[in-house]
């Protein structure tokens, strides 16, 4: 199976000490220890969801075994402990994102709910007929559809900033589309389908000059890079826990306090009120105004543990290793005859989308799965992105810090097998 291209790859830096240290993290992830039909699992679908370290699983288990109670309500000891842990998790998110105050962090189900919250609570309140919402061509459906829905309700227009053939946003086109009617800008920090890292600080500053409010979808960024919402100066930032080594069903919305204060609640219910009579309800203070009902306490605690875990490894080590995986994977995959990488931005996260001549991505996905290699095949909930590149779907390998060069070697060897099936 060694081909001439592979020999050249042997010369790429593979194994300094920092890489070895990071590869030991794999032992922390129970799900990564398994074999499927006798073949060790190679998990390369991290942009869809990441695996969960033991410390996160333990934190959730510990909550259910020792501290389970409702939060902000009980006077009993369990409720006090649960509330403390839940609020500690909020502070961890605050520090992760570099927010000024913990009350600027709202727990939500994930990035999708965070965007829907802003679209409904801010968008519906502030958008009027003729106003514009600006997004980019590379957005995930979750950062398209909520804006389409509010635009339709308010008679506002959805504008789309295009990208080039590498999958990079055309910043001059983005600038041209910004105007005083642009009330809202919603941008992916990193494209899930292409891996493109957008220059969001610059894009935010440009939007602010026109008076627009900026939301950044950080679902793909938080697992890979340090985020500082004050540096970015964005108005809202959302991410999902499950893509950042935490549990499913939880995520966070950061919003500038002054903006969150002006917004109406997204949902009504318990915990989001100060007082209720049948004549009038006074809403609770931030962030509880936006957290109606019993929240996902275990999820928040699990997310807190994931943030601790990420912090112990450090984003510098993560980014360095993932960039090496990206470089190695890009060269190894590009060397395969008939393989085309979709998304070749200069600034890229560790995501490689590709198509193979004569083989549909679903067939690639099924065949590599038989070798216990998990990749994504499909439109990645980014159909407009697929349309831009003229493909119905792509196969996508996405790496986390626990992936190794050997994982990539196995993927490459299996793609040769795919080609044999269709030869």
């Amino acid at each position, binding site marked *: 199976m060694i081909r001439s291209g592979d020999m050249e790859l042997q010369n790429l830096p593979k194994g300094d000490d920092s890489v070895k240290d990071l590869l030991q993290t794999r032992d922390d992830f129970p799900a990564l220890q398994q074999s499927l039909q006798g073949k060790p699992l190679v998990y390369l679908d991290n942009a869809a969801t990441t695996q969960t370290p033991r410390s996160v699983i333990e934190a959730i288990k510990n909550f259910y075994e020792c501290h389970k109670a409702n939060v902000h309500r009980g006077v009993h000891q369990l409720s006090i402990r649960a509330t403390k842990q839940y609020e500690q998790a909020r502070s961890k998110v605050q520090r992760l994102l570099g927010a000024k105050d913990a009350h600027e962090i709202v727990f939500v189900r994930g990035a999708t709910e965070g965007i829907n919250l802003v679209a409904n609570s801010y968008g519906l309140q502030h958008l009027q007929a003729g106003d514009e919402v600006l997004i980019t061509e590379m957005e995930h459906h979750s950062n398209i559809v909520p804006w389409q829905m509010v635009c339709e309700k308010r008679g506002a227009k959805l504008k789309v900033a295009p990208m080039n053939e590498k999958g990079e946003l055309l910043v001059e086109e983005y600038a041209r589309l910004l105007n005083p009617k642009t009330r809202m800008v919603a941008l992916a920090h990193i494209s899930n389908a292409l891996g493109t890292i957008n220059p969001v600080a610059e894009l935010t500053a440009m939007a602010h000059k026109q008076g627009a409010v900026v939301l950044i979808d950080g679902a793909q960024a938080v697992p890979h890079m340090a985020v500082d919402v004050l540096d970015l100066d964005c108005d809202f930032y959302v991410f999902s826990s499950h893509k950042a080594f935490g549990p499913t069903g939880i995520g966070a919305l950061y919003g500038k306090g002054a903006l969150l204060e002006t917004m109406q609640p997204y949902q009504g219910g318990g915990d989001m009120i100060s007082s209720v009579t049948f004549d009038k309800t006074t809403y609770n203070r931030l962030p509880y105004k936006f957290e109606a009902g019993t929240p996902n306490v275990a999820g928040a605690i699990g997310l807190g543990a994931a943030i601790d875990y990420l912090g112990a490894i450090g984003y510098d080590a993560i980014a360095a290793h993932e960039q090496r995986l990206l470089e190695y994977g890009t060269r190894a995959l590009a060397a395969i005859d008939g393989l085309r990488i979709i998304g070749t931005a200069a600034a890229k996260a560790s995501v490689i989308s590709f198509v193979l001549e004569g083989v549909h991505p*679903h*067939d690639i996905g099924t065949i590599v799965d*038989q070798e216990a290699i998990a990749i994504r095949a*499909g439109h990645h909930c980014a159909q407009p992105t697929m349309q831009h590149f003229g493909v*119905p*779907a792509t196969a996508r390998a996405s790496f986390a810090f626990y992936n190794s060069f050997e994982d990539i070697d196995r993927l490459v060897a299996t793609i040769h097998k795919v080609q044999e099936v*269709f030869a």
Partner: protein
Amino acid sequence: MSDLRELYQEVIIDHSKRPRNFHVMPDAKQISVGHNPLCGDKMTVFLKVDDGRITDVSFDGTGCAISMASASLMTESLKGKSVAEAVQLFGMFHELVTSEPGQIKIAEALGKLAAFAGVCEFPIRVKCASLAWHTLRAALEGKQETTTE
């Protein structure tokens, strides 16, 4: 790779690479577009039915090997069949691809379509195999759009 060869049988690979009846039929009487929202695949089925009998059928679109081969083999097996026979064949085909592995009864009437027996080992691919058939049924019922959902 033994399961894979069950799924990707020679006849399936052949029909996916060289699909038969793969063209637009401008004078078709019944046309339906089928979507698989899961993967974004889209397929159009063109039909001519005369006196309750399928006189011509073709398809157009993009999809994986399983969906392309399924559409191709479907069009081959339908020509000359009555509408009632086509519906019956869909029933048999559907049973074939959704059976519990090991429990399959391959009806003789399926002919070449029996090549899809391996699909039941891959539940996620059932929709790929049945997209063309769902689209056919919509066309027979006079619906212009359908999905596999």
